[in-house]
């Protein structure tokens, strides 16, 4: 962490020579280990750490002991390595060792056992399959019956439609009676236009005038009611 000390300017003027090349006097505040990129602290600048004095006698003794120890450990490790290899070869921990005759007998016994199991299961399986086949036959029969009923209903519906269409076909306009139909239509013009006044009176026809032909003498409903319905519709 960096903290700019106060009075930087004042100190710059007074003892400029004391500050480093940097324009700011920087002070490092630390509460943990010094980061690697920071310089050596001023108080530790010319400190030479003392070497721990070594006892030559002790050193020689330790050297001897260590040499012995390493030698012993090396041979011990070699022995253990060979032991592990030997155990890997001879172990029967994860597999069973049998003579060929025993294996044969074991195999025959297993085959016999398997045969009996197969027979037992075959009987069960046949029973089950028979039952399943019966059930399937019943199901198929039911479904066929249902399909037949459905088809009949459908045919009935179709017949109904055809009958209705045939009845309607009597009033159709065809090529033969096209002329007569046109003449009839021309002879009987129909006017769907109408107008309506505020009292709800309907005036049929495009050219009808109030008081003329087609004018309703009196409206069938009350005036107020008509007014309300008109407002509501608006």
């Amino acid at each position, binding site marked *: 962490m960096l903290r700019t000390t106060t009075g930087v300017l004042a100190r710059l003027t007074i003892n400029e020579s004391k500050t480093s090349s940097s324009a700011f006097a920087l002070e490092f505040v630390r509460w943990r280990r010094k980061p690697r990129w920071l310089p050596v602290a001023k108080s530790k600048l010319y400190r030479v750490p003392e070497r721990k004095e070594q006892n030559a006698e*002790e050193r020689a003794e*330790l050297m001897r*002991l*260590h040499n*012995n*120890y390493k030698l*012993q*450990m090396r041979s*011990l*490790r070699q022995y*253990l*390595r*060979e*032991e*592990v*290899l030997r155990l890997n070869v001879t172990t029967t921990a994860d597999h069973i060792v049998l003579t060929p005759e025993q294996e044969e007998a074991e195999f025959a016994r297993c085959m016999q056992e398997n045969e009996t199991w197969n027979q037992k299961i075959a009987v069960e399986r046949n029973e089950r399959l028979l039952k399943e086949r019966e059930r399937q036959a019943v199901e198929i029969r039911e479904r066929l019956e249902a399909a037949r009923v459905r088809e009949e209903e459908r045919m009935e519906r179709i017949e109904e439609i055809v009958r209705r269409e045939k009845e309607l076909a009597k009033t159709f306009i065809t090529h033969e009676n096209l002329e007569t139909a046109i003449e009839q239509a021309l002879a009987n013009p129909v006017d769907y236009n109408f107008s309506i006044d505020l009292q709800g009176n309907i005036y049929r026809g495009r050219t009808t005038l109030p008081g003329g032909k087609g004018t309703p003498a009196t409206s069938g409903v009350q005036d107020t009611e008509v007014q309300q319905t008109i407002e509501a519709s608006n």
Partner: protein
Amino acid sequence: MSLSPSSGIGRYYKHSAKIIRFVRLGCTNRPFYHVVVMERRKNQHQPVIEQVGTYDPMPNQKNERLVSFNFERIRYWLGRGAHLSTPTAELLGIAGFLPIHPRTYMTAWRNRQKVAEDGTIEAKDPVEA
């Protein structure tokens, strides 16, 4: 504090360096160690390959420090080329499985020297983890 079980769920590469060493369990001011096999480069609180012993460094009421080892598995792992940490080697040396470690001798003679100098019995821990 380790949350991984000591039953040995640690995964390891076939040819990575394994080591038999301590894992510090227990709590503040009450150390307790498991002797485990694990990959050498791993942190001690990672899952271990196998636990092969325990070590309680604090003397009990009868002034005993209890150690247990699974020597069969230690033999196996040493035969597989596992390394040994120094404290473990010292313990195994004292237990009689390995030759006595030189550091054990060193601690012993330094303790003796200290006793001879001060006249006080303030022996240092023979096995410091």
